[in-house]
Each structure stands twice: as structure tokens, then as C-alpha cells.
């Protein structure tokens, strides 16, 4: 069973509302503040990208569906700060720092470092990890879309592509494994592939059976096709 964020293929969402490039980058001032606050807090170095994603996914389905995009970010950030002990529930309630701040101040992102920090990013490719078990052109089958060690844990195998047959399209080297990294179980890098799925293998009534959906999937999501 997956969580509310895993919505690929879902029915009932209605039309997409294109903006044709007209929408401002941040529609209101607070959208920009949420993005900035989240990015700047990330530079405190107390959680990984995968942990951050997972906490947003753990919003209750009601909140996830009713919150706007930046409300999800804001809720995810507040929950993460508490989970990591950086702020307490009491501080969120009273909005005054009742406990002495942890010694993180020297990690605070400085304005003069913003552009270089954003330009640097953080590669997820690693030298360590197993050799590739599959080669380009080989048929594979995906396993169940679930975190294998933690119930309700993070995974990047979407439910719609669970238990489906596809073909290895590309190999991208070894990358940090989100299912482990989101739960402080180490980076556990493993080979990452692009896998091609024909629309007819994914959908009961594909628009065009020959259309292809490409997913980036880690080696342990895949089994050899029999």
C-alpha cells in the first residue's frame, strides 16, 4: 500500500490549467519565503533530501490533498525541525525560543554564499555499491512498490509501475538509494536504470499502446523477466 503522494495514473483530477509562461515565479510573497526558508534550513545539514521528501509524503491524506504546494513544504519543514530536535513543539506554539538553540549557528547559510551554494548542488552518484546486474535492452519486472524494511517507508517505485514488465533503456551508474537514505540507514548506493514501459503494459485502456513511459528505477526494484 502506498501513500497519498503516489498519484501517477489516478482518475478524477480534472483538467490541467496551463499558465503559458504567464505565472510569476512566486505567486504571492509567502510562497517565496517558504521556498527560501526550506532551502536555507536544508543547509543546516541535519537531514537528507530523501528524509525531507519522505516527511512531506507523511502528511495525512486530508492535509496533503487540501494543502497547496508551498503549504506542504511548510508543514514538512515544521515537522522535520521537530523530528530533528531543532525546534520543539512548545516553541512552535509559543513562537519564542524557550530552550537554548542547538549549536548549529555556524552552519547558518550566509547571504553572500547563497548563489554558490545553489550552484553547487549535491550529486547522488557514488563509486561504491554493487555492479550492474542488468544490461541495456534486457527485459525486467518491477517488484512490489513498497519500502522492504519499513512499513509505510519511503520508496521511489510508483504504484502504477509495480509488478510490470519493462526494458532497460539506460544505466546511470550507482546512486544513493532513497529507500535507505530516507530512514537514516545510510546511502546504500546501487545501480540506477532508466526502464521503458509500453503504455499497454501499464494501463487497461492506453491512449496509444505504443507510447512509452520511462522511469528511473534502482536495481533492487527490478527482477529479471522470466
Amino acid at each position, binding site marked *: 500500500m502506498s501513500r497519498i503522494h503516489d498519484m501517477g495514473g489516478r482518475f478524477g483530477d480534472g483538467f490541467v490549467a496551463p499558465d503559458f509562461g504567464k505565472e510569476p515565479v512566486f505567486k504571492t510573497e509567502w510562497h517565496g519565503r517558504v521556498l527560501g526558508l526550506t532551502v536555507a534550513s536544508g543547509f543546516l545539514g541535519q537531514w537528507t533530501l530523501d528524509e525531507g521528501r519522505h516527511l512531506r509524503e507523511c502528511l495525512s491524506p486530508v492535509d496533503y490533498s487540501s494543502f497547496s504546494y*508551498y503549504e506542504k513544504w511548510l508543514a514538512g519543514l515544521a515537522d522535520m525541525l521537530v523530528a530533528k530536535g531543532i525546534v520543539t513543539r512548545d516553541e512552535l506554539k509559543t513562537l519564542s525560543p524557550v530552550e537554548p538553540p542547538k549549536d548549529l549557528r555556524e552552519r547558518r547559510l550566509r*547571504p553572500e554564499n547563497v548563489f554558490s551554494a545553489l550552484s553547487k548542488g549535491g550529486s547522488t552518484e557514488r563509486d561504491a555499491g554493487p555492479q550492474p546486474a542488468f544490461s541495456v535492452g534486457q527485459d525486467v519486472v518491477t517488484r512490489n512498490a513498497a519500502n522492504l524494511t519499513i512499513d509505510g517507508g519511503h520508496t521511489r517505485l510508483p504504484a502504477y509501475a509495480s509488478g510490470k514488465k519493462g526494458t532497460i533503456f539506460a544505466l546511470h551508474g550507482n546512486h544513493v538509494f532513497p529507500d535507505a537514505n530516507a530512514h537514516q540507514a545510510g546511502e546504500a548506493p546501487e545501480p540506477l536504470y532508466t526502464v521503458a514501459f509500453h503504455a499497454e503494459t501499464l494501463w487497461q485502456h492506453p491512449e*496509444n499502446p505504443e507510447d512509452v513511459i520511462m522511469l528511473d528505477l534502482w536495481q533492487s526494484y527490478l527482477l529479471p523477466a522470466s
Partner: protein
Amino acid sequence: MPHDTSEQHHPHSLLPSDPALRVKALETLLVKKGLIDPKSIDEIINTYENKIGPQNGARVIANAWVDANFRDALLKDATASLASLGLSGRQGEHIVAVENTKATHNMVVCTLCSCYPWPLLGIPPSWYKSDAYRARAVREPRKVLSEFGVHLPEEMNVRVWDSTAEIRYLVIPERPENTAGWSEEELIKIVSRDSMIGTALVVVPT
């Protein structure tokens, strides 16, 4: 880390209910604790409003259209060729470029969240982050495209790239036929953000 706290209310529910006040409250608290410099937030906003946006991607596309060697390098190893132009960084650490042709149309989505090539296109627009786009782009891409005014012939193959890992995808749209002899600067102006996501074609304005 506990990942389900719903039984005892998520901590975020302790903040004010109005989102603008909620972010103000959290920012104030973190500033008081010495963990956030509000000027850094200003600078992050300024960076994505003014320095990093679809104009970066448009330069890459126009360059690929006029320089076959650059196009080949981009298709072979986009991460390396973009890094040589200073176009790398957060949410663009690993880039793959995919090319639209007469036979194949590419479009990009992230069904699980809203992964997007920030260094090339900036912050994603609302529709890219919407439930409707995330849910439907993989199941009925042609119908979604028609909502953008793009109607593909049935014989054209559609490839949808679901950004499930840290690879970010850049669509190289087809260069319009009536742009022979155009300068790179002129070409940059007609490359829309949506054409690099694959929800628009590049057309010459009439």
C-alpha cells in the same frame, strides 16, 4: 525518525492556520534561534526570480539548434556539457537531454513529487506541481497535451519521462523549419519554458 505522528497531531498543526502567518511565525522563530539569516531567504528568492529560470534552458536549446557538435555532446552527456557552461547545481546535478523529432515527442513529469531541472528552468509552474498533471501525464499524455493546445498525430510516438530519481530531464524541442538563418539571440526568444518540459511545441510568432 518517527514517520507517522498523526495520532498525536503533526507538529505543523501547532502553527497559525493562515499560511502567510504560518511561514512568518516559523521564520521569526528560526531567526531568533540564530539558524536563519532573513537576508539569505531574500537572496534565494532573488536568485530564482531573476538569475535562474527558463532563460537558461532557452540558451542551451538555441545553442544546440545552431551548433551540431554541442547538440551531440548534450545528447551524449548533458550533465558534463551543461557544467562546462556553468549550468549545474541544486535539482540539476544529473541532467539528461531528450530530443523531439518528427517521429517522437517527449514530455516530462514527476508523479511522486515535482522534480524539475531547476538550474535550467527555475522553479516549476503551478500546473507542473498540480495533482491533475502528476496523475494524468503518464496515463493520458495526449489528452493532457491537448489541454496545452498541442495535438499530436496518432502515428507519432510519445515518450513520458517520470522523474523518479535524481536525473532531471530537458526536452530539446524541434526547431521550426522557417527559422533558417536566424541568430542564436533570435532563437532564444522563441523557446518557451513549456517546450522544454514537452507540453508545447516551438512556433514562430505570426
